[in-house]
């Protein structure tokens, strides 16, 4: 087996990684984690104001400047802000490589459409948090069916559904027939069968690796490795599927 070179498409510089020394420690100890894509530190809680969103993106850019060969970033946006599209363009101009939506609005709401259209115009992927929780979603937290709805509305968009929709048996079915939706399983859900169902249902070209760092990197990577996939499939999940999602200008040349 070739040495692992993993792109982690869904990470955060929060919790222990709010300290750059912890990030340096992680990167030094885990050369297999070749490239991390930060989805910001999500300042301001569920409904961040404009300053908090801007500060989150500035934080991501600061990590990119400190670890230029190992870290890139998503542009975090609260679509309800009047400045959302401007902030998004500021982020892309500074080097961020896609749009990150969390729980301030459901992705299928009309208020989200302008930022989605801006991402499509820029040819960048969109990382969309989704969950279907037995314990109940947050008021404006997207369900996998929201993801499916907006992906149907924008077939030219490139969507990455986070967490396989949380409840993955539900989430993966919701997007199975939508070729413009990829999925990552990032996070702490360790129940067996998720990657197996994803590869079965989506094929190995629409599954992207993410850990949700500071969730456990190897805990997540091991779920993929346990599957015993061919090296070709592993390389797709760990690396090339995400590279293919990126705009040509944003594709890493060194991985």
């Amino acid at each position, binding site marked *: 087996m070739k040495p692992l070179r993993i792109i982690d498409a869904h990470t955060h510089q929060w919790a222990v990684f709010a300290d750059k020394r*912890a990030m340096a420690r992680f990167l030094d100890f885990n050369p297999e984690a070749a490239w991390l894509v930060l989805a910001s530190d999500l300042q301001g809680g569920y409904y961040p104001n404009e300053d908090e969103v801007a500060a989150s993106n500035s934080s991501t850019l600061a990590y990119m400047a400190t670890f230029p060969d190992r870290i890139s970033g998503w542009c975090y946006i609260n679509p309800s802000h009047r400045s959302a599209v401007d902030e998004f363009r500021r982020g892309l101009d500074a080097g961020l490589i896609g749009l990150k939506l969390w729980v301030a609005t459901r992705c299928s709401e009309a208020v989200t459409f302008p930022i989605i259209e801006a991402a499509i115009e820029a040819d960048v992927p969109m990382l969309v948090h989704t969950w279907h929780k*037995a314990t109940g979603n947050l008021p404006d937290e997207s369900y996998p069916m929201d993801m499916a709805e907006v992906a149907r509305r924008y077939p030219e968009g490139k969507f990455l559904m986070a967490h396989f929709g949380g409840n993955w048996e539900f989430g993966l079915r919701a997007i199975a027939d939508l070729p413009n939706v990829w999925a990552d399983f990032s996070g702490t859900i360790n129940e067996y069968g998720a990657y197996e169902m994803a590869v079965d249902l989506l094929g190995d070209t629409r599954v992207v690796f993410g850990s949700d760092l500071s969730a456990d990197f190897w805990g997540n990577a091991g779920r993929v490795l346990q599957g015993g996939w061919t090296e070709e499939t592993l390389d797709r999940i760990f690396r090339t599927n995400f590279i293919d999602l990126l705009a040509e200008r944003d594709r890493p040349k060194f991985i």
Partner: protein
Amino acid sequence: MAKGAAGDIASVVDVQPLFDANLFCGSYPFRKLPGQSAESLAEVIAAARLSRCVLTPFESIFYRQPLEGLKPWLDAACTLPFKPLYWLAVNPLMPAWQRDLEAARRFSAVAGIRLFPRYHGYGLDHPALAEVAAAASSLLMPINLTARLLDDRLHPYPLRADDPLAMETVVELLQRSSQAPWVLSMFTMAELAVAAPMLSQNPNLYFDIGCSKPFEFWEDDIRALGAPSQIIYGTGAPLYYHLGNRISLSRSGFTATEKQAIFTGNLERMLSIDRRVAAAPV
């Protein structure tokens, strides 16, 4: 999808012997899992490279007669690469639970009893639980208190569980029953942190951290709990992925001696208590 051999743990970490404190088998009602037959279970054991294990048949959790869920597996064990031990689920609300406890004592392969309060519907202050704990304690029989089977957010509707166990009530229970060897299994790391001060008060208390979902830097989280000598490891397989967490612990900064203790030694020591008890008059 064609599969290759890339899932070999040896590609990213040295393999260590593992005495799995939390392996499941049997029929899980809500999803098809490996391990439904002895033959399939042997494959799970081989894939996870287990050196020993303590098994919990799903049937013994969900049947009202837990022994009926356990007995077929006692017979099937002869086809496995080693003789497994078992947790016997006991429901304190069932009349004559003493019969189950007596059976647990009688079968040498039963390492201890296992409690699932959220699925069997009783609080940790229920008098019947106190009686079960006292009876097990008098036998020095290990008691595994299980916080959950699944992440709370994933429970299928028919398995809607009671609210998560309040850790204050867990601590109170442990204080009331400090003579018994206790294992806290499938608690989150944050929950275990609340009960962590109990480790120094009760040397017979063990935390199974295999399904506790630590964040990055396992060593820091586990050391913060204190007493690595009271940490054991259960995979939760095949309900859970077994490989990733094992890689994380293997690559952590614990010394080789500490890792050996967490992966095998601490559980062996805890169960030796049971062996002494099994030979003792009741």
